[in-house]
């Protein structure tokens, strides 16, 4: 209490921050995973958070829906980031019916000529699998996994801090920088140089430094381009890979998902937030934010309801926040211009298939481990050139005819999602640009679905005959139905110029905005990358400090 008083006093002296008594209501816009996590921490911090979700369910991009009678799928995201361990611990997720399934092998990557590579949790086991392709690569794999882990430790540290203020670094910024500096020094001279060299590199060059097997290169490189407008030969894609490795240092990333789909996970987050006092309202769409004299005063819902608040936290993407919910005349022109330049053109589509049976992959011998092998992620994109060509199409406003697919069949480990004996296949499809040059997504939706089934059939020939239902979610749908501006699943491009102190824009990377009382907590803020919850936690910390 004394400390709070001191903080209060201190803030009053500074005179720029908002000072709110403990227990005051804070409205959060959007019920995605980051907003739910922020709400949890705000409630713990003594505020009264109210989450307003436009749709009938919370979860944002992490939801489970019935897409075909009797078939349910993680409609959008189909694997976890994974969630940061400390967040999972704070939220006590294990208490809320949320069982995380972690398949092993994590990734099964077939080639079109009937070979396949498997990636296990265990490094030695994976190395043995790689040995079938190249003894040299097998021997290098352990070294690669280790250096990735070491480098990732630095990114883990970086992801947990608030980007420093460049003009007037706070004592905490300096402390954080010191800590980060220490973790950099911990990498040693070679490690530091590797880090500096790798960051701006093309991920295709990065994997080529270690491996010669095309399939192995492609599976690892794919992680650097997921959800981005980058091909494996685009510089800077290694930074994205390293950023992802911060959440899970395994070379191919995480394959974990909750029983009941991703919706079960966000329901557990919501439940946890409710338990500590957060209020969560669904079917509550925000129309706009009321601002007076540069500070928020309230919020208006589409049904006309008006709520008076002194602080608003937006979990929706920055472009939607500033260009749809805020009166443009309230924005500083420099800020508005930078925000306009914030790139958020999505490249990912999602296809969910209701299958009458399990697809047969000839690349897998029909043995007992068949099911186990298919229970993780399936990577369709056997060569760097394949990925690059898939990307090429999107540069000219066309979706890939031979797309790169990241597939899961969640029903193998979680049969509850489909009727008995039937299966759900969920595929991230890349590359599908938000803006098509010819036609539009309403007329081309079917073509995209067909292209995906055709691409899959090259690896599982019986698949087309099994399809009972199909759901195609185009980048256009991601914007209109799910609220991702530009259809960008990460709320904004993950590129060197839009990370860290530049996310979403330089000078405003500290979860605050130029509008007093308006904060950001979504993926459009640092580190903002997948279902890790890192943006939500970082934002909560800054918001609590600012509000008190």
């Amino acid at each position: 209490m004394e400390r709070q008083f001191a903080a209060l006093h201190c803030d009053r002296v500074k005179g720029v921050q908002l000072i709110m008594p403990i227990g005051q209501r804070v409205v959060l816009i959007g019920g995605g995973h980051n907003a739910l996590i922020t709400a949890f921490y705000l409630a713990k911090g003594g505020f009264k958070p109210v989450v307003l979700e436009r749709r009938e369910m919370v979860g944002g991009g992490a939801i489970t829906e019935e897409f075909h009678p009797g078939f349910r799928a993680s409609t959008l995201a189909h694997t976890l980031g994974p969630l940061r361990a400390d967040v999972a611990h704070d939220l006590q997720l294990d208490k809320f019916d949320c069982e995380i399934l972690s398949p092993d092998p994590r990734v099964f990557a077939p080639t079109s000529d009937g070979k396949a590579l498997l990636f296990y949790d265990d490094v030695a086991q994976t190395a043995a699998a790689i040995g079938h392709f190249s003894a040299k690569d097998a021997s290098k794999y352990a070294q690669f996994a280790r250096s990735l882990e070491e480098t990732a430790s630095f990114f883990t540290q970086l992801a947990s801090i608030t980007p420093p203020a460049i003009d007037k670094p706070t004592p905490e910024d300096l402390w954080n920088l010191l800590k980060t500096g220490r973790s950099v020094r911990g990498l040693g001279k070679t490690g530091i140089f590797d880090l500096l060299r790798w960051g701006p590199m093309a991920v295709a060059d990065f994997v080529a430094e270690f491996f010669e097997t095309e399939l192995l290169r492609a599976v690892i490189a794919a992680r650097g381009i997921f959800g981005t407008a980058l091909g494996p030969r685009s510089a800077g894609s290694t930074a994205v890979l390293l950023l992802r490795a911060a959440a899970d240092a395994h070379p191919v990333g995480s394959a974990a998902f909750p029983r009941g789909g991703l919706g079960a996970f966000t329901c557990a987050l919501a439940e946890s937030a409710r338990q500590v006092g957060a209020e969560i309202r669904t079917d509550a769409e925000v129309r706009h934010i009321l601002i007076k004299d540069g500070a928020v005063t309230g919020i208006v819902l589409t049904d006309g309801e008006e709520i008076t608040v002194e602080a608003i936290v937006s979990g929706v993407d920055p472009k939607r926040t500033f260009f749809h919910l805020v009166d443009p005349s309230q924005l500083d022109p420099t800020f508005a211009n930078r925000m306009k330049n914030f790139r958020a053109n999505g490249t990912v589509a999602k296809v969910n298939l209701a299958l009458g049976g399990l697809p047969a992959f000839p690349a897998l011998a029909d043995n007992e481990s068949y099911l186990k092998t298919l229970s993780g992620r399936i990577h369709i994109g056997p060569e760097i050139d394949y990925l690059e060509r898939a990307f090429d199409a999107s540069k000219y406003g066309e979706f890939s005819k031979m797309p790169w697919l990241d597939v899961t069949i969640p029903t193998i480990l979680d049969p509850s999602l489909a009727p008995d004996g039937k299966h759900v296949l969920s595929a991230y499809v890349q590359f599908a640009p938000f803006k098509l040059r010819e036609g539009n997504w309403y007329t081309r939706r079917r073509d995209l679905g067909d292209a995906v089934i055709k691409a899959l059939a090259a690896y599982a020939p019986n698949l087309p005959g099994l399809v009972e239902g199909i759901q195609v979610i185009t980048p256009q749908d991601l914007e209109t139905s799910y609220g991702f501006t530009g259809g960008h699943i990460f709320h904004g491009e993950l590129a060197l110029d839009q990370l860290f102190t530049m996310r979403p824009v330089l000078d405003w990377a500290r979860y605050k905005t130029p509008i007093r009382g308006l904060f950001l907590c979504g993926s459009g803020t640092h580190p903002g990358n997948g279902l890790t919850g890192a943006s939500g936690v970082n934002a909560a910390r800054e918001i609590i400090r600012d509000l008190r």
Partner: protein
Amino acid sequence: MFNLRFQQLFFFVDPLAVAFCNDRFEVALDGVESESYRMGQHYDVVVIGGGHNGLVNAAYLAKAGKRVVVLERRHVLGGAAVTEEIIAGFLFSECSYVVSLLRPEIIRELDLPRHGLEILPLDGTFSPMPSGDYLWRMNDHAKSVRDIRRHSRLDAEAYDEFSKMMTPMCRFVKPMLSMVPPDPTTLNPKDLKQLYFLLQRFRELSSDERYTLVQLMTMSSADFLDQWFETDVLKATMSASGIIGTYLGIRSPGTAYVLLHHYMGEIDGAFRSWGFSRGGTGAISNAIADAAREAGVEIRIKAPVGKILTKNGRACGVALQDGEELSANVVSSSVDPHLTFEKFLDPHELPADFLEGVRRYKFRGSSGKVNLALDALPNFMCLPGPGAHLRGAISISPSMDYMERAYDDAKYGHYSRRPYIDMVIPSLTDPSVAPPGKHVLSCFVQYAPYKLAESTWEDQREAFGDNVINTIAEYAPNIKDIIIGRQVLTPFDLEREFGLTQGNIFQGELSLEQLFFLRPVAGWAYYRTPIQNLYMCGSATHPGGGIMGANGRIASQVILKEWKGSSPRSTATASKASN
């Protein structure tokens, strides 16, 4: 002087010692100041390669009193900054064809104008379009803005803003071109001070300047320009300077930096200006060579180096391919790291991690050159007849997609079916390079990947040349009728003829992971090498390629600074020990 004679005498009477080098040599040197010990054969510094950087390096060392020899493999000096009469009466600036980045301090300190350097202005960039229209930017800013306004009013306004914003960007980066990159991994106070200095300078920028600088350092040139402009041909032409010498497309991050690198041009104190050297780019090399000779440098042509001689991990001279050996206290190599470390040295002489860094260093040449001797001037359909538009650069870069598709071809190992071409007709500005009434057309062509997927450059050379001419003919159909002769240089030729590994014109890609303290090898960006007394001074070092000369100048400073007593005491081994 006495000491010198004493040394010569010493070696004269002891023929065994002629088999040189250090142990004996150092014993001999103890308590003696001079180091020359064999008449006509021993030098303070041997510079490998007579390109502009090698010559600059030699000139500065000689001015500081060192006895220097430059060894050039070819029959003509200049490396890639060379002029040759390939077709009788026509002087081709074979490789590098325009100049802008040559450091003003070098021009001043070496007094190059007195040695014959004369830069003639290159006015503007003319981009013909397939639609029959064109974009013509000139050195006169107001005229450029007027022409841009024909395409877009908004862009005309933005162009003003853009030019204003780029000036502080260039000002920020320029001092970095003349500094030895600091080592970011040490706690050495000197390096920390430099890093702090850079950070402070960054913090002194205004918020908008910082924003733009960060973008320039990280973005793709296409994304960067998309924020400013809407006219396709304007963006395409401007973004082209972001891909020169790289194996990247305009949409690949990191190309905005290359754009800035080419934006920094400065001639006679005027920012952003490009020019020709009278007599071709070779005249620049000749002017530097002249200055070097005046300072006492001995320059030998047709003297190809075969090997760098070492003794106990120290460079002690070079052996020419014909077997002649030259001993030296310092070897300064202006050729690229591949040649220096993999060809002129034995792999076992180098630490494994360094060698790996050298092998990893990316060259990947991506451009070729087509030089044409013309009977008359090309006639562009969009602006017929001769005119001022032919006096500047003519850029075949009609749209962003055109540029990107050119890159797509190269990615999969083909030369661009429709390449980006940057052409100049130097004979309009400098009539001395062609017979009266006739002209020289110099075409820089990108992309031409070093490795072709399905063929060899030996087979494809002429087809590549035809493709370039066909591309030009789409805009200036008369080109095919006025060609008297041509020279086609593929990346393969650039490697074979000019010693540019994999045909990279900058001795290694200008990509972010190969710049500043990472160029050429992380941990060795300080012009030193793991071999004591062996230094690098070519484009493969910071600050990279182009006719800048900065590399050679900074390297000379490093060498001189470490010169104590008989030879430099580089901290090379020290920094390795701290590893």
